[in-house]
């Protein structure tokens, strides 16, 4: 959450605020990564600490109130237009580009997948799996920071109580729908983008049909369970039969790799 408290005028404060926010979020992500990679804490618990305590810190900073930003340039991040397109699209494209370049043109993506499928084996193969894990969490924190900037710039305020509340499931859902395995070991960045679009369509649909917005939570929970079930080998064996399973997963995997 950034609060650009400067007077209107130069763009200096804007960049300062953005840089500060991104550094803080990367540090926070790095902290999670440190807990997971060096202390060996389960990721779910390590990140749960900040899920609650982080919100506590945010509330502490804003005093539990919504801090409104009176600084016009700040609005550009989430609400501005560039070449007739919302500026936030360019941010997304930029982040995606960096992620794709890093993971698909360098060995980094391979390393991440290998750590995901077996950290010990990767370590024995000479991959510094601890640093990879640290880096991944750092990047996740950094991305969450960018998301936070877009979100708060869109409404020109910082809300420690509600900003990003329950985004965790949305994010996980987008990734899972996109075909990334929850067990780790394979990921599809473009699938994630499509997953995010599907979720937003779902949300928009629910809003426009006129049912209470809170029902969203129920729908999303059901969708995430269904997608998880579809990923589970046991479930597929039961539903699609044992013989077919091996063939279809084999095909799917090769398709997936070639797609990305």
């Amino acid at each position, binding site marked *: 959450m950034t609060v650009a408290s400067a007077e209107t005028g130069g763009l200096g404060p804007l960049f300062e605020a953005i840089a500060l926010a991104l550094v803080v979020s990367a540090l926070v992500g790095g902290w999670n990564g440190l*807990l997971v990679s060096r*202390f*060996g*804490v*389960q990721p*779910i*618990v*390590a990140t*749960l*600490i*900040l*899920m*609650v*305590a*982080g*919100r*506590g*810190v945010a*509330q*502490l900073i804003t*005093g*539990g109130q919504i801090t409104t930003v009176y600084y016009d340039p700040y609005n550009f991040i989430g609400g501005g237009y560039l070449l007739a397109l919302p500026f936030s699209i360019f941010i997304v494209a930029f982040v995606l580009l960096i992620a794709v370049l890093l993971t698909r043109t360098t060995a980094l993506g391979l390393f991440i997948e290998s750590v995901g499928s077996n950290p010990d084996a990767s370590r024995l193969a000479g991959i510094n799996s601890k640093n990879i894990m640290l880096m991944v969490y750092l990047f996740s924190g950094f991305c969450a920071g960018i998301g936070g900037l877009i979100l708060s710039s869109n409404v020109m305020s910082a809300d420690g109580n509600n900003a990003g509340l*329950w985004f*965790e*499931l949305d994010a*996980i859902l987008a990734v*899972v729908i996109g075909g990334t395995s*929850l*067990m780790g070991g394979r990921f599809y960045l473009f699938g994630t983008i499509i997953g995010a679009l599907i979720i937003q369509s779902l949300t928009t649909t629910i809003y426009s049909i006129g049912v*209470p917005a*809170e*029902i*969203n*939570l*129920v*729908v*999303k*929970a*059901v969708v*995430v*369970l269904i997608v*998880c*079930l579809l990923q*589970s*080998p*046991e*479930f597929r064996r039961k539903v699609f039969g044992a013989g077919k399973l091996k063939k279809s997963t084999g095909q799917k995997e090769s398709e997936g790799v070639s797609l990305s």
Partner: protein
Amino acid sequence: MINRLSLDYKQLPLIATIALFVLMFSFGSLRYTGFFSTQVFLNLFIDNAFLIVVAVGMTFVILSGGIDLSVGSVIALTSMVAASLTMEAQLSPMIVVPISLLVGTVLGILQGSLIHFYNLQPFIVTLAGMFLARGLSYVISVETISIDHPFFSYMASTRIPIPGDNFISISVVIAVIIVIAAIFLGHFTKFGRTVYAIGGSEQSAMLMGLPVGRTKILIYTLSGFCASLAGLIFTFYMLSGYGLHANGMELDTIAAVVIGGTLLTGGAGYVAGSVVGVLILGIIQTIIVFEGTLSSWWTKIAIGVLLFLFIALQRIIVVRSEKRQGKK
């Protein structure tokens, strides 16, 4: 590796926790007048009876190496179901209470079955359960439903006097019964031993012929039931149902269990330890109230910091004991 560890390793976190509790209580007593009294101590139980009950259920889940993130939402859903059935459907508490208790139990069975039969990770299943329960309570109503019923008022305001001019509430009695039952269940029954065995190593437990699947489903059912019971106690305490009740209670519960000395990886820990863990969370809150100038957000931050410290302590202990075993 983790199964055959010496006693001192298993008990160190618990000893640290009890020492911390004594330390914090004496700190409070020295700093604030009126802090050192039996009633302040008993109030810890009265204000945290629901947390004790959830933490007991969570202890079994964490002992088995799993996690249940849905408990906070189940509390909200139970309070919502109880409130709407009492106030809108005008049902008698004789029907409302069993139905409310069923809510979490059924959700627990579902979650346990998904985790066992389809081999899904506990965290994603219970995360979905968390959102499902929270969403369902909003489906019932987005607004707060306050309860005005003789039975609920009776449960909320009855004071059971105990010697020395002090009192406890009915909720405390329920919580104490649950704790005693859980200690019995955990340490003196086949179910309890199986839970520890699964936490130590699920593979070994399976090879030993223990009923792993049944136990796993039962663990999540138990946790769901405890969460529902806690939801009822919470409803007695707040006298209302609201979809945002017990927001973030998952962390409090997990923190209480971990601070109480249960290993996050499963296989070692005590139900009684979780009770001490809850008391520590309670005393943080009490100190913040007595201090008066601190905002409630500090509670969240303090719990987060404390949780981190105890996780660090656990890691040090595990690493040390692994090293020691390596030497042997």
